[in-house]
């Protein structure tokens, strides 16, 4: 499905500017649960879709913001390639624009890069009603400020993502997942020990009982690394990483207890917090199911050198993302002002003040 809806979107944003009417940008609606509650009239981007340019030999794909991840990933698979950051979908209609706006990355993130690492260029509809292009379709580009990466994870508060160019990678020739029983401290230590050696590790996870590691790359390289790391081979590994971990289908994620995402230095020791934890990303991403008060969680995580966000559920009326120091918040406000002077795009979705 290919459709250029940018004129209508630009018209809608200009009308909103004239009426000073806030807009809630919406793609597939799969990530409406993230961030603070959407406010404003819906601006539907899903109709602005289609792959605009895909050159497998250049490792670059450009698609409109409303293109579904499903369409993109099947085009890539046909050419034996993939989105290296393994974005979670959290729903059938997940779009590229929403994925980049939320800055979400999956299990391969510490090893193959985050969404922001792979964004090469954007076409953005700003809160001034202008369509601007930043970056491009090449790997190396330092002309002008890196606005494309600034847009990644900005939750649509700086602009509507009309088009994105991403670096893609060949899918690995071989993949193997191994698991072993460990306690949390040992699991973190092992994840970091492996990452300090030149091994083809592409995902790690500790579910409270077992430590899982995925190796991907050339056939012989994976076999050599598997022999070195040891552990039991996991059957159904592909669906384990995709459905259980990336899409949060694992039993750990079931139920209504608030889900927190804790981002800490990879080797940070186990965090003493009430509730269950699931550790990913070589120790850098820790999921917590806990009813503990936000302040108590944030204090422990800050002391460990990280930050905490209330990912799913819980009280979403306050700040769900980690509060920023005053100087940093000032810079955020001024940047918001620079892209969206009337504060109309996804107001309050990231922080109450933006």
């Amino acid at each position, binding site marked *: 499905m290919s459709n250029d809806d940018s004129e209508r979107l630009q018209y809608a944003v200009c009308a909103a500017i004239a009426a000073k009417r806030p807009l809630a940008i919406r793609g597939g609606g799969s990530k409406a649960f993230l961030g603070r509650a959407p406010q404003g009239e819906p601006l539907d981007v899903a109709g602005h879709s289609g792959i605009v340019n895909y*050159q497998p*030999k*250049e490792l670059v794909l450009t698609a409109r913001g409303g293109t579904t991840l499903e369409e993109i990933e099947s085009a890539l698979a046909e050419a034996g390639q993939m989105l290296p950051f393994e974005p979670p979908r959290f729903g059938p209609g997940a779009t590229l624009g929403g994925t980049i706006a939320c*800055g979400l990355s999956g299990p391969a993130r510490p090893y193959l890069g*985050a969404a922001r*690492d792979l964004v090469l260029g954007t076409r953005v509809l700003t809160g001034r009603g*202008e369509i*601007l292009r*930043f970056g*491009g*379709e*090449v*790997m*190396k*580009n*330092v*002309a*002008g*400020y*890196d606005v494309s*990466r*600034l847009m990644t*994870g*900005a939750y649509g508060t*700086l602009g509507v993502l009309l088009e994105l160019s991403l670096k893609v990678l*060949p899918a*690995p*020739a071989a993949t193997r997942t191994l698991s072993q029983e460990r306690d949390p401290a040992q699991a973190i230590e092992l994840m*970091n020990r492996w*990452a*300090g050696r*030149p091994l*083809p590790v592409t995902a790690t996870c500790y579910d409270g009982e077992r430590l899982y590691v995925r190796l991907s*790359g*050339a056939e*012989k*390289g994976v*076999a*050599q690394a598997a022999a070195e790391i040891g552990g039991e081979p996991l059957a159904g590994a592909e669906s384990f990483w995709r459905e259980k971990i990336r899409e949060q289908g694992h039993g750990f994620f079931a139920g209504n207890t608030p889900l927190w995402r804790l*981002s800490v*230095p*990879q*080797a940070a020791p186990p965090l003493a917090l009430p509730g269950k934890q699931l550790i990913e990303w070589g120790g*850098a*991403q820790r999921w917590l199911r806990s009813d503990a008060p936000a302040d108590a969680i944030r204090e422990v995580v800050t002391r460990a*050198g*990280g*930050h905490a*966000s209330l990912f799913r559920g819980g009280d979403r009326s306050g700040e769900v993302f*980690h*509060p920023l120091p005053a*100087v*940093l918040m000032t*810079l*955020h406000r*001024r*940047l918001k002002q*620079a*892209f969206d002077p009337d504060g109309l795009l996804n107001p309050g979705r990231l*922080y109450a003040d933006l």
Partner: protein
Amino acid sequence: MSVHLPQRPAPDPVRRADLRRALRAFLPADALLEQEEELRPYECDGLSAYRQLPLLVVLPRTVDEVRRILRLCAEREVPVVARGAGTGLSGGALPLADGIVLSLARFNRILSIDPVNRTAWVQPGVRNLAISEAAAVHGLYYAPDPSSQIACTIGGNVAENSGGVHCLKYGLTVHNVLAVRLITMDGELVQLGGEGLDAPGYDLLALFIGSEGMLGVVTEVCVRLLPKPERAQVVLAAYDDVEKAGAAVGEIIAAGIIPAGLEMMDGPAIQAAEAFVHAGYPTDAAAILLCEVDGTNQEVSEHIARVRELLLASGATEVRTARDEAERLRFWQGRKAAFPAVGRLSPDYYCMDGTIPRRKLPEVLRRTAELSAEYGLPVANVFHAGDGNMHPLILYNANNPGELERTEELGGKILELCVEVGGTITGEHGVGIEKIRQMCVQFSPEELHQFNAVKRAFDPKELLNPGKGVPTPRRCSEYRQLPQHRHEH
């Protein structure tokens, strides 16, 4: 050479004397340079065709001194140009006549290395290579390796988002820096990023990296360290036709191999490099490719075998695998010495830095050769083939009247050609002062306006490195009025 120098008010001797007095009040005597002979070494960076003496040079030692310098300059509205080792190639550290140069040369300590988390906190004046040297005992290294890595500093790398020959696999500075601490022009200390893999809020770290000293002054950098690959191996392939070499690059990538380094040189560059370092290059080749793969022992063996097959099938006239580490280093030595080697052929050379979609290589090389003939100036090509970043080297003699101006004009046309085929005017050297006019070709007035608004969010009075990186709309409208420079998207 005054055509693109920033238009600045003439320095006022009274203001200069006042500023000097105010700086002296808190800076030690050896942290302030004011005599002409002391200022002279700071008059240019690696783009030495542009020279300008600053008002004063300050060489602070502490973060507090940097903060007080910036506060004072903000109060008095004195422009500040931060400087690392001065190896930049786009004039980003060129002084301004009415501004000071803030040298970070004395911030040269590695503060800590954490081998378990694989990170290091370093001061901005630490040399790029010094980080890898210090991390080597842990089997770790810092991946981005610009060709100036012996001399260039990490602060400068952050300012330029520097790359190197291993970018396709290991990324640029932006992929290898976890956090920076900086001081804004108002003297506020801010940390962007953190020791984890992400930070809350906007990705200001990504915005800051590559901002060419226009948003803040870096005082500390936290870099990511990677494990040294178990083995690296390089293959050299020779071609009688540049187009075949270009196609071979696409074949390697289509086969699912991401080489650690993938470089191309054309005939003139090969001959110059061979005459200089005797790397054993085939001097009758129209192009050579150097393809390095790294990883675990088994992985490298598997990939090297595949790369050799692909290169032979792509019409290479010769394919050689380095027999040992000494030969591997010799293959690379020719590539790494390509700039000085070309420099020996001519009194002066001018290095360009466009990036293009790789499939456009034959067209760009052909049209570059046509432009070279039109201007009567030889061009040698060195190309980071893996990521599309080209470095055409224009040979000229600055002593011939008008030749530098013609060289710049030719360079500008080559960059505009890169934009025309869907690329960019700069892959890794930055815009600085050098490519400021071509920014008007790559970006629309609205986009440039947006860049200026980003700048003002950090530096409302526009005192940090003003006139660099992003042109003012007025300068662009003047440039666009020149024939054949209309903006097209």
